[in-house]
């Protein structure tokens, strides 16, 4: 009898495939377990390591599984409590194909294969689980849906990944290329290529590639009559061959082809043309690999029929964002792609509602407001939207409004199913208040902007960041005109917005310490959204409205544009633009880590360097504040 073995058995029985075993069996397995502690960043096994005699279950902490391409690490999967990984030795004999590394300090159970094997052999359910896991690709969200939580984590094979951005996608390529010797006769070689239906052949000296003959060489050198078909192939081959390492990424391969003006790359053992050949990458392989890029995601969104379909696509977007950030792809670029995909999901959600309700009785526009309106939404945050429909005759008004309210309700419900929570303040097109005619909206904006103090309760600045998701472009333009017309020389309004922007609490104390939450669930954490991002967002909005800069909704781009428009303060704006990106990245990383909105940063988990980086990003805020104060001479609401 072993008390701790029983506790471990208790733990295991919650997770598949262990849930198919009896407690007695689990206790027996648990008795043979080794418990290992992994410090943060400690590697448990890496690519090409000899297989261990055990597989692993995460008891606490997080283990990252990753592969390396172009000498950079790409995250395949995160293993959380109860996840199984490293099961490769059970089935395969070759070495590990990925790296397992502790993302945070973790405790894992090492279960010896020899102990577990009899339980697999004698229990068909356990066996099925393992076979199914290996037969399926967890990266495919359709399977994820069916087998949620039922799969082991390391059956992800890199070449199969669907949701990578092309920057670091790896390629599958032909690894049994046609090969010939330099003395072969052109005619025979051509015959060989024709039979194999392949447009290239590598000329080898032993196994070392010395040249390549492609259809192009046949066309330009033989068919033009420059060489007879009876000469040896080395007379017409292109040489040297451009060679690469096996795990070259799509982007790298593309660059190499462009740079050398070739259509084929030869994969060799060590990547040079002095080692033996492993395969060939053709332009076609690149095209095939590109089939899974953001563009394809958008296409799939357009074809989706149910909220469930959309939800799966949104999950793939999360993977894509996570990997992009991991790979240091510029955040502004990730922002663009993510917001296009988000927008497509919203658009499709409105479409689905219309398919359900029938054609709308009037023209309308569905606007995203807030962070999605600014195109800077990387994490799943709550939804903010408004609906504007064209003016109709008074007798029809009720029916029309009724229809659009229904449309709003359906759409927000769909989006909720996709994973965007409903706005806690009710800032959504499904709300009576925010679903109304163009005239009513014009009145609304007029009153907000001309008498800002009076009904400021329901004035949220997010109403000034909007982007059309669905419907009539002209309605959006009309509202834009109303806003910018009202903004002109409107001291009162800017006074209000300016004060609102300055009202936010500063991120650092007098002694340059982070000001953290004093109570509540996020005690001792740093509110990066309210204390650091919001002031920048508010200020950027304030200035673009003031400078009459239409159509630029993104905070980063707003600052960039302001640097051009107001050149004498350019430096401040540019610093703010950079700071905004840095801060967004911190927030996104925190959010991805905890699967939440990332609003509260746990400072204890930041390294000293990161803390400094974070503090440095606050520096431009002070200058920005001064700029606001001097420009708007704030008085009325101070």
């Amino acid at each position, binding site marked *: *009898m072993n*008390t*701790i*073995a029983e506790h471990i058995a208790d733990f295991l029985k919650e997770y598949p495939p262990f849930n198919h075993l009896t407690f007695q069996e689990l206790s027996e397995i*648990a008795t*043979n377990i080794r418990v*290992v*502690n992994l410090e943060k960043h*400690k590697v448990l096994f890496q690519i090409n390591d000899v297989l261990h005699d055990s597989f692993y279950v995460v008891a606490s902490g997080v283990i990252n599984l990753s592969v390396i391409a172009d000498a950079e690490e790409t995250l395949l999967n995160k293993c959380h409590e109860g996840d199984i990984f490293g099961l490769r030795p059970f089935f395969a004999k070759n070495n590990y194909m990925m790296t397992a590394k502790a993302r945070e300090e973790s405790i894992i159970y090492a279960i010896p294969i020899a102990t577990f094997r009899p339980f697999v052999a004698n229990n068909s359910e356990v066996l099925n689980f393992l076979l199914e896991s290996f037969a399926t690709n967890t990266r495919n969200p359709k399977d994820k849906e069916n087998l949620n939580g039922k799969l082991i984590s390391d059956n992800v094979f890199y070449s199969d990944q669907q949701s990578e951005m092309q920057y670091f996608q790896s390629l599958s390529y032909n690894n049994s290329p046609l090969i010939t010797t330099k003395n072969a006769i052109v005619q025979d070689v051509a015959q060989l290529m024709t039979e194999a239906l392949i447009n290239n052949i590598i000329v080898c000296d032993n196994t070392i590639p010395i040249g390549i003959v492609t259809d192009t060489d046949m066309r330009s050198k033989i068919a033009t009559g420059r060489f007879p078909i009876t000469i040896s192939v080395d007379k017409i081959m292109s040489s040297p061959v451009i060679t690469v390492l096996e795990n070259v990424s799509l982007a790298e391969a593309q660059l190499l082809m462009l740079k050398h003006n070739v259509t084929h790359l030869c994969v060799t053992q060590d990547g040079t043309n002095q080692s033996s050949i492993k395969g060939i990458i053709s332009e076609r392989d690149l095209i095939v690999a590109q089939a899974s890029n953001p563009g394809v995601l958008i296409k799939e969104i357009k074809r989706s029929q149910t909220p469930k379909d959309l939800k799966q696509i949104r999950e793939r977007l999360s993977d894509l964002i996570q990997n992009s950030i991991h790979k240091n792809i510029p955040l502004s670029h990730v922002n663009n792609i993510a917001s296009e995909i988000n927008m497509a999901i919203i658009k499709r959600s409105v479409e689905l509602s219309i398919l359900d309700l029938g054609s709308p009785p009037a023209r309308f526009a569905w606007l995203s407001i807030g962070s999605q309106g600014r195109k800077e939404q990387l994490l799943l945050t709550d939804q903010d939207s408004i609906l504007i429909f064209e003016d109709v005759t008074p007798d029809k008004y009720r029916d029309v409004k009724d229809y659009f309210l229904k449309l709003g309700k359906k759409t927000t419900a769909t989006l909720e199913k996709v994973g965007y929570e409903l706005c806690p303040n009710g800032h959504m097109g499904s709300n009576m208040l925010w679903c109304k005619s163009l005239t009513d909206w014009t009145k609304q904006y007029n009153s907000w902007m001309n008498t800002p103090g009076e009904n400021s309760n329901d004035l949220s600045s997010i109403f000034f960041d909007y982007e059309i998701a669905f419907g009539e472009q002209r309605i959006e333009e009309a509202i834009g005109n109303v806003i910018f017309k009202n903004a002109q020389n409107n001291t009162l309004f800017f006074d209000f917005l300016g004060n609102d922007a300055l009202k936010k609490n500063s991120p650092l104390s007098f002694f340059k310490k982070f000001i953290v939450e004093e109570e509540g669930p996020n005690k001792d954490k740093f509110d990066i959204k309210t204390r650091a991002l919001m002031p920048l967002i508010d200020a950027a909005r304030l200035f673009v409205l003031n400078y009459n800069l239409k159509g630029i909704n993104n905070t980063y781009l707003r600052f960039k544009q302001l640097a051009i428009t107001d050149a004498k303060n350019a430096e401040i704006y540019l610093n703010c633009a950079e700071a905004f990106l840095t801060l967004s990245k911190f927030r996104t990383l925190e959010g991805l880590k905890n699967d939440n909105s990332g609003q509260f940063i746990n400072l204890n988990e930041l390294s000293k360097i990161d803390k400094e980086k974070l503090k440095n990003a606050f520096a431009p805020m002070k200058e920005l504040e001064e700029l606001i104060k001097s420009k708007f001479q704030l008085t009325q609401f101070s």
Partner: protein
Amino acid sequence: MLDWLKNINKEHPEFWKTYISKFEKKPNRFVILSTETSGLNPTKDVILSIGSFAVVNNSVIIGDSFEAVLLQYKFLHDNGLSNEFIVESKMKKLGESEAIQSLIVFIGNAVLVGHHIDFDVEMINAALERLDCGRLKNEALDIDVMYRKLLDINDRQFSLDELCTIFKIPKSDRNSSSEDAYKIALLFLKLKSRLGIK
């Protein structure tokens, strides 16, 4: 003091001789040890239960463990306790002499690790004396001392609970010497890697 003088002419039991002979080799494992006792006085109090795990190659070997409830008839009798609750537990029950003997066989020449291990060692030594054996020869490590060394703290001690909180080891609602030994084992792994102990 001068304990060895007392024992110099005594004939030690067989298991003890085997134990002593093990120290010719260098230890290759750690043994985590936790005891539950009736009080804090090594001469008057007795061990009620023992929980123990081996740590080899930076991992806790769940199977390589020893745990037992020690039936202390005299202690129970003197305090007017029935041994009903002990009988109810599923843990292995042994008389003190058997238990200590098995424990000695189990630990061998391993380096002992515990929380305030000196006390556990003293308690075991007292029991060994009753069996006409010498004192434990094993090296011992104390996780509290290790932790204080890590942070260079000299002026206070840390309880097991405090250490578990610091290292985010979940507390279990069940409390026994085995539970404690397991928690100590995890703490030891964490401290060991931080201090770079091989």
